């Protein structure tokens, strides 16, 4: 199969799969609803029926969140892998999600400790997302500065893990000091949940994620140039500072916002770009970027369906499912030791 044919074939089949999973995600859940009920709810039947409430208030927003989260984490993972020329880079592994968690912990746990409280939903949501951005941005900034001096892939990864551990240690101290109420809300936050995103939060998550994704689409040409290395990219006229700044902005927005509202979700950002590379047999970001977004959204829908255990009255934390799905991919990448960069 020639390159472009394979690309088209993969895009079409992934889109079909995405639609099927999207329907399944809305159809399946702890309460079993008939497809007719769901359809009626979607096209605006009786808005007060149980089915309608379940579908429009819970399942549909959750499916939209899954799409956004999957695309966002995958796009940020792809950018980081190319920027750091490191196949194992990703928002979770490099400690950027941990940075965001620390920011959120400081906001959710630290503020009550200081006797402050954010009253009102909007203020609280903005506080959570703002502190996640600051936390994610700080870690990313340090890693970018260090990576200019240290070119060793492993050193950067270990550094990211150290940051992650340091952030977790701080969070634990905060937890230890915190009263029960604040602690409970924080622990629930750390479990990561797509369904916990309120409509108020979605109204922040949606536009910010879309902006982050648009920036990453605009970066496909410089990302391609970076595949050849920084020297080549710069001598081909690329403004390295501006490109680094834009990758920084987009990654902070994407990974920070997702972590703020859904908790730390691991292994999607690192695994999905690799699966996209294998499926499409491409290195060109004009293909890889949309492919990773599409594949990430699909994978996240799948994780969501599995996590809600259709037919059972329980929901598994989403990050356990993403870990179980993503880790084998990461292991394959390490074992095959393919020269991705």
């Amino acid at each position: 199969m020639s390159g472009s044919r394979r690309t088209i074939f993969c895009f079409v089949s992934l889109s079909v799969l995405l639609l099927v999973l999207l329907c399944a995600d809305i159809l399946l859940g702890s309460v079993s609803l008939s497809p007719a009920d769901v359809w009626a709810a979607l096209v605006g039947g009786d808005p007060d029926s149980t089915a309608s409430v379940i579908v429009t208030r819970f399942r549909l927003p959750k499916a939209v969140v899954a799409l956004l989260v999957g695309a966002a984490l995958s796009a940020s993972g792809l950018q980081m892998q190319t920027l750091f020329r490191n196949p194992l880079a990703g928002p979770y592994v490099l400690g950027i999600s941990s940075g965001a968690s620390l920011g959120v912990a400081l906001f959710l746990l630290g503020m009550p400790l200081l006797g402050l409280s954010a009253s009102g939903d909007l203020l609280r949501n903005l506080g959570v997302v703002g502190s996640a951005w600051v936390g994610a941005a700080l870690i990313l900034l340090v890693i970018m500065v260090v990576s200019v001096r240290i070119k060793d892939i492993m050193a950067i990864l270990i550094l990211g893990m150290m940051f992650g551990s340091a952030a977790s240690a701080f969070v634990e101290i905060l937890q230890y000091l915190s009263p029960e109420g604040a602690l409970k809300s924080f622990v629930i936050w750390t479990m990561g949940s797509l369904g916990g995103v309120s409509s108020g939060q979605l109204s922040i998550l949606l536009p910010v994620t879309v902006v982050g994704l648009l920036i990453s689409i605009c970066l496909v040409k410089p990302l391609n140039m970076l595949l050849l290395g920084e020297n080549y990219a710069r001598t081909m006229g690329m403004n390295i500072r501006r490109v680094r700044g834009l990758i920084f902005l987009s990654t902070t927005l994407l990974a920070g916002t997702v972590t703020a509202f859904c908790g730390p979700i691991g292994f999607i950002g690192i695994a999905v770009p690799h699966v996209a590379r294998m499926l499409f047999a491409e290195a060109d970001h004009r293909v890889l970027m949309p492919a990773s977004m599409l594949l990430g959204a699909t994978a996240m829908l799948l994780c969501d369906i599995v996590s809600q255990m259709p037919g059972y009255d329980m929901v598994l934390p989403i990050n356990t499912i993403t870990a179980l799905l993503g880790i084998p991919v990461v292991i394959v990448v390490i074992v095959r030791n393919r020269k991705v960069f």
Partner: protein
Amino acid sequence: MDTQRIYTIELHGLSLGYGDRILFENADIGFGWGEFTALIGRNGTGKSTLLRTIAALNRPLKGEVWLSGKPLSELSSREIAARISFVSTDEVRVTNLKVADVVGLGRAPYTNWFGTLSADDRQRVSEALALVGMSGFARKSMDTLSDGERQRVMIARALAQDTPVILLDEPTAFLDLPNKYEICLLLRELAHKQGKCILFSTHDLSIALEMCDTIAMIDDGRFYYGTAAGLIAEGTIQHLFDDTSICFDAVTRGVRLKF
């Protein structure tokens, strides 16, 4: 430097170094159109630094580099990219990255934000591949190529960038002897037939002396420049082997043990 002539690269009182360490001072040299020049010197004398400074990747300590009659500092990164292409020592062996895409990236200074290649761009890409003898490799992935093939692809990428100057940092390192000669012959032909100014650093002294129009040599903080015959006659090349157990034989143009 002949002030009447127009040079593609001019070094004006150029001094290079890092912090306190000075590599060389006050170099005043001009490289012209169609000139194929080897840059030689021992390890750590500043060959790469000079190439990187000309390509605006490093800043000089003192002095200035001029490109086609304009100082580097007055050119935007885009304008520099249209004047100089650089083949670095970075190895590009990305899995799934197609040869044609790498060469196509050479058109980056001229393409839109998405990097879309026009019909003219694609034409230039296939011409560049043909010039380096890699036409049949367009759809191959970079990780499947040999070192020599990869070097040709990187040279084709520089050709696609369509610049009057091509700088290459040790393009013959890691190649076997036939490939070293093949790459140098290719570069010389590009300089002479396409009128490019080609400057490359190398440790292959015999190839440099045999094939290049001119030699630039950095030794002990000084910059030497001239034809191979001239530099040999002046005894300049011999400086490379001061304090070593080998010496340069001006007759055979090779090296031999002193004892």
